């Protein structure tokens, strides 16, 4: 019905401008509201990002003299804030990568091992169930609840003394914080990684695993030659998820590294204090910093995007 009306109206308006009213009558009121609503939501979600981006290119005067979402004009445009932010955050980028990459990879691998154990191995279900229950419970432990025990735990571990040979090589002993962060993030990421991999392995063909067993492969060989090569899409999901979590986490860095002046300060810790001073906030600098801090996670999404979509779909 509506399609017919629109076609008629369209033809009429081409041939006879006087029939334009007829063309409008063919427009579906529902669609008008639908598109208005959709564009409204698009603007709602994009304006903060757009504001952040344009603000990061403004001089301090430009920030105070214009709306946050208006682009900088010739005199208020500058790359200077990005340069300053990069200088301030550069070491933080390196420090963050130092723990985020190993922690992501290790937690994904261990999660995959654990999930393989509780799905494909021939342990009795009555032994598998409590282990799985522990993993699931682990997902629901809030970070805030474990901060104090975490700090106490690390204070009892003589990590700094046992790594003294490293400090002898001229490495700043603040870097024990990085090692603590790796171990902590692996421990707290393991439950969700395991549960994600478990759902993936549950859907794997049981007959295929059985075929491999009959082909003479041991449980380790089956993992290495069959299960691991087929886990690509789920690794993409877990790597993206874990990397984003670990890279963006501020709480553990506050507890384990503590100060932005530390040589091992991660980017989130430096970012927290960036552009803040007694004279007030440098919004442009803070925005530029935020974008720099977000770039690595964006890169990871782009790198694993295709596998991610496949893994989420399964």
């Amino acid at each position, binding site marked *: 019905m509506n399609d017919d009306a629109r076609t008629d109206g369209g033809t009429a308006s081409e041939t006879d401008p006087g029939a334009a009213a007829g063309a409008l009558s063919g427009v579906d009121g529902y669609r008008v509201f639908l598109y208005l609503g959709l564009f409204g939501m698009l603007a709602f979600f994009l304006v903060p990002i757009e504001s952040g981006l344009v603000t990061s290119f403004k001089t301090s005067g430009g920030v105070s003299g214009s709306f946050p979402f208006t682009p900088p004009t010739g005199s208020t445009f500058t790359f200077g804030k990005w340069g300053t932010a990069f200088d301030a955050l550069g070491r933080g980028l390196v420090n963050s990568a130092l723990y985020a990459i190993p922690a992501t990879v290790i937690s994904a691998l261990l999660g995959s091992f654990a999930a393989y154990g509780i799905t494909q191995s021939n342990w009795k279900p009555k032994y598998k169930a409590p282990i799985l229950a522990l993993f699931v419970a682990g997902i629901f432990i809030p970070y805030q609840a474990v901060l104090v025990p975490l700090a106490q735990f690390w204070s009892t571990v003589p990590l700094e003394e046992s790594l003294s040979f490293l400090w002898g090589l001229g490495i700043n002993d603040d870097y024990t914080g990085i090692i603590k962060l790796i171990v902590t993030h692996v421990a707290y990421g393991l439950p969700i990684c395991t549960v994600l991999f478990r759902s993936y392995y549950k859907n794997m*063909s049981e*007959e*295929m695993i*059985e*075929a*491999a*067993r*009959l*082909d*003479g*492969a*041991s449980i380790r*060989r089956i993992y290495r*030659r*069959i299960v691991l*090569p*087929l886990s690509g899409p789920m690794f993409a999901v877990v790597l993206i998820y874990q990397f984003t979590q670990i890279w963006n986490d501020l709480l553990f860095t506050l507890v384990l590294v503590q100060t932005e002046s530390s040589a091992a300060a991660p980017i989130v810790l430096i970012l927290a204090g960036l552009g803040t001073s007694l004279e007030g906030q440098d919004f442009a600098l803070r925005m530029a910093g935020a974008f720099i801090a977000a770039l690595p996670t964006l890169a990871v999404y782009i790198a694993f995007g295709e596998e991610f979509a496949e893994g989420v779909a399964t």
Partner: protein
Amino acid sequence: MGTLELDGVTKVFPDGDGEVVAVDDVDIEMRDGEFLVVVGPSGCGKSTTLRMVAGLETISSGEIRLTGKHINDVKPQHRDIAMVFQSYALYPHMTVRENMAFGLEESTDLSDDEIDERVTDATGTMGIAELLDRKPSDLSGGQRQRVALGRAIVRDPEVFLMDEPLSNLDAKLRSEMRTELQRLQDELDVTTMYVTHDQTEAMTMGDRIAILDAGELQQVATPLECYHEPANRFVAGFIGDPSMNFFDVRRDGDTLVGSVFDYPLSASTLDDVGDVTDLILGIRPEDISLAGDATGEHTFSTVAEVVEPMGDENTVYIRFEDAPEGETFIATVGGLQQVAAGDEITVEIPEKTIHLFDGTTGKAVHNRELDE
């Protein structure tokens, strides 16, 4: 190559608080190079039996011996058994070559060259040489089936296990593969245990058939023995298509009395029956023939209700004249004999072709006579 013996093999699954007996005290002995088809309706325990032989299920009680060696506790990877799965279970990330080489790499110390040679040989046997570098996702169902078989053959195991390997193929391909499998098994002469629910496959492929129902072994015999000398009512009804007709009858003196017909028995048949009075009369559809008139002892007036022409023969659903509508039995008659629905026809049920089963136990008390 080897012999395979199942001795009192039982599998019990826990089910809530109780237990379910999936396989109950099964004894089977397979000689070297034998092709045994295990057949039965779904849920009869045939796949479980196969999986116990493979080592994929534990054995609740009983013993499995491979060439005289007790293998109950041997892990599947050390049993020297190759299995073909219904779903083919190919490794999707590997090429055909890698799929076939996998088993040899994992279970033997052969060099890469030897493995390559054996894989090439096996692909030649299976006619899949040109597919070697393709992945399973690029293959058709029939080709995947061949790769799955090739993967088993290349291992050169003592025993092949096949779990409904043809059930995912279309009808034409299935009958082709059936012939080919038989040829292969003949050529390789490897002891093979083949599970299917399809009685046609069982009849045509096996040296012997083992029929299972509700976890219990009903009969192990050659296909023709199962067909002509069924051990019980279940086997008689399961083997043969269309299946055997059964009538509940009571013996009264020297006559079987059914609900709508009487069937006199000769002295020799009566000897077999003994003193059982509650009986089931069985007759195969092809043993029922059209007769001229209802004068004989074993001829009956009937009405043809439905006729299904198959070309070479007609499947006729008939009922006794006095029986209520819809209560039919099946006869197959020659394709050139003119029978139409609604015709009144006279059929003969010859005494030498009937089977009699004990009405309570189902055991065969009398099987048809066979001309030597």
